[in-house]
């Protein structure tokens, strides 16, 4: 048998920590968006008995996954700066290069290859940076709302900074409505993110979507 084979390369790009946090965060966002929209507009019908705390349990899930998102947001920021592999940090070089921006934007419009120094392109990097900042803001507003509702324990510990932020934002209603606006950023991001992950995999023959599961990227060897 002498079939011509295209030489493929296997590269380890996502550590186990990155992958686990990615999927935990995906789960947290899914649960938080659904329960969050319920809290904003309780769309389920009333239970047959007042003993079934429908709103209470949904709020409980929202709080649990809210703290999961808070924890991941912090750990993920730490990992970006201090992980052993610099594959994420390397991408910052592309962000500061105008040429890299042009190359990436052209590649999205079917012209030319992706050419990246790290694991992310410049537009991708900036998008993730913005999403991380919005995640931090939705976590902070969420914690402020939490501290305003649960006054003891952890809420009590956070009370002073929460009260300060509430005052800076002009009241609890503002904290609450910004928390709501930020939700939409995630909803729209997820749709674009999934599409781009699938599309770049097909377009550039990368193991794109599976790499966040297996950690490995397979792509044709460069000649």
């Amino acid at each position, binding site marked *: 048998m002498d079939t011509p084979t295209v030489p493929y390369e296997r590269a380890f790009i996502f550590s186990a920590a990155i992958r686990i946090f990615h999927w935990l965060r995906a789960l947290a966002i899914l649960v938080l968006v659904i329960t969050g929209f319920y809290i904003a507009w309780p769309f389920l019908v009333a239970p047959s008995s*007042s003993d079934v705390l429908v709103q209470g349990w949904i709020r409980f899930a929202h709080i649990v996954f809210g703290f999961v998102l808070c924890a991941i947001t912090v750990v993920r920021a730490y990992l970006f700066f201090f992980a052993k592999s610099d594959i994420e940090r390397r991408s910052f070089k592309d962000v500061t290069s105008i040429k890299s921006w042009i190359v990436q934007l052209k590649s999205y419009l079917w012209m030319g290859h992706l050419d990246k120094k790290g694991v992310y392109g410049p537009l991708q990097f900036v998008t993730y940076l913005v999403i991380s900042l919005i995640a931090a803001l939705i976590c902070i507003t969420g914690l402020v709302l939490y501290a305003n509702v649960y006054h003891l324990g952890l809420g009590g510990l956070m009370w002073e900074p929460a009260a300060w932020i509430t005052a800076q934002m002009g009241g609890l209603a503002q904290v609450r409505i910004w928390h709501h606006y930020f939700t939409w950023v995630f909803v*729209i991001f997820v749709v*674009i993110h999934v599409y781009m992950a699938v599309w770049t995999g097909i377009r550039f023959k990368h193991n794109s979507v599976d790499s966040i599961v297996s950690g490995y990227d397979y792509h044709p060897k460069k000649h």
Partner: protein
Amino acid sequence: MDTHAALYQQGQARLKMLRSLSPRHAHSLQSKMEEHGISRRDFMKWSAAVTAMLALPLPFSTLVAEAAELADRVPLIWLHMAECTGCSESLVRADTPNLDSLIFDHVSLEYHETLMAAAGWQAEENLEHALEAYKGNYLLAVEGAIPTANNGAYLTVGCKGHTGLHIVKHAAEGAAAIISVGTCAAFGGVQAAAPNPTGAKGVDQVVNKTVVNLGGCPPSEKNIVGTLMYFIMFGQLPALDMFNRPKWAYGARVHDNCERRGRFDAGEFVEEFGDSGAKEGFCLYKVGCKGPYTYNNCPTERFNHHTSWPVLAGHGCMGCSEPNFWDDMADFEKPLGRQLLHGLDATADTVGAVILGATAIGIGAHAVASVFANSKED
């Protein structure tokens, strides 16, 4: 109990000092109570209730009772700015004069435009005299927002044509303490709603002294009298929250102590006014209750002699005691998430859904184009 003991001693010293001053009224509080048919027993109950409301231990009720009797030693100057007098009404329009309105009558009220007999030059002279005679000692209560645009020209009061801004700044200079009564004086209120052509502001934004903000449109008579009593008793202001509201009154959200809170947790909501849920007393969140974002003691203290309050009457809280409530809490009969955004006349969810739809169309177009795009990859 050490801090309480110290506070008690402070109160005793303060009241001893007040007792040495001459009373302003010929009639004692006791004779006034008799005149209005209020028994000594009612007075003791009231003292205990005020003590509990101020979050003080029961022994302080003797101080409250004594402070009430000595209220005529504390000069109070009450100014009306850009307002509707609803806050004064909240206090004085009781169907039968109770102790709250009686204390307001008994306190040494030096100037109050609604209640005084004087008018014109005479009224002006009374104010000037009071500001001078009690300089550094009077309690200043302000009702209404302060228009600041065009140097405050949108509000001029009295025969001398002074602006409200001028009067408040002048009165604040010699005040021992300043209380903003109601949302307008505290945060600007309706007058400060967008686009706020008169530049209306709360008192604390035009004077550089600590101001106690008693939010509410109106605040309950309990919150006004409680703050007065605290100042009379201790000669200082109570512990304040992030918006300088007394913690004893504004320490918990309306939502926290709402009688319909159980309905909220159970997910039982009124869908529209007059439906079966409304008749059952379900939670008013979906018809716009802003109790979750509003700090006040309405559910526990209520209004008009503890008769009722908005949620008990079947309408959601409008958040009237919060800063910027007219803009922030609109629409009053929709939850915050369904608020129409200014200038867009659409909710955040509509805007989000439109952007999401545009994103989906963009993705679809890109995907279709990708099928036809000439792949140069190998």
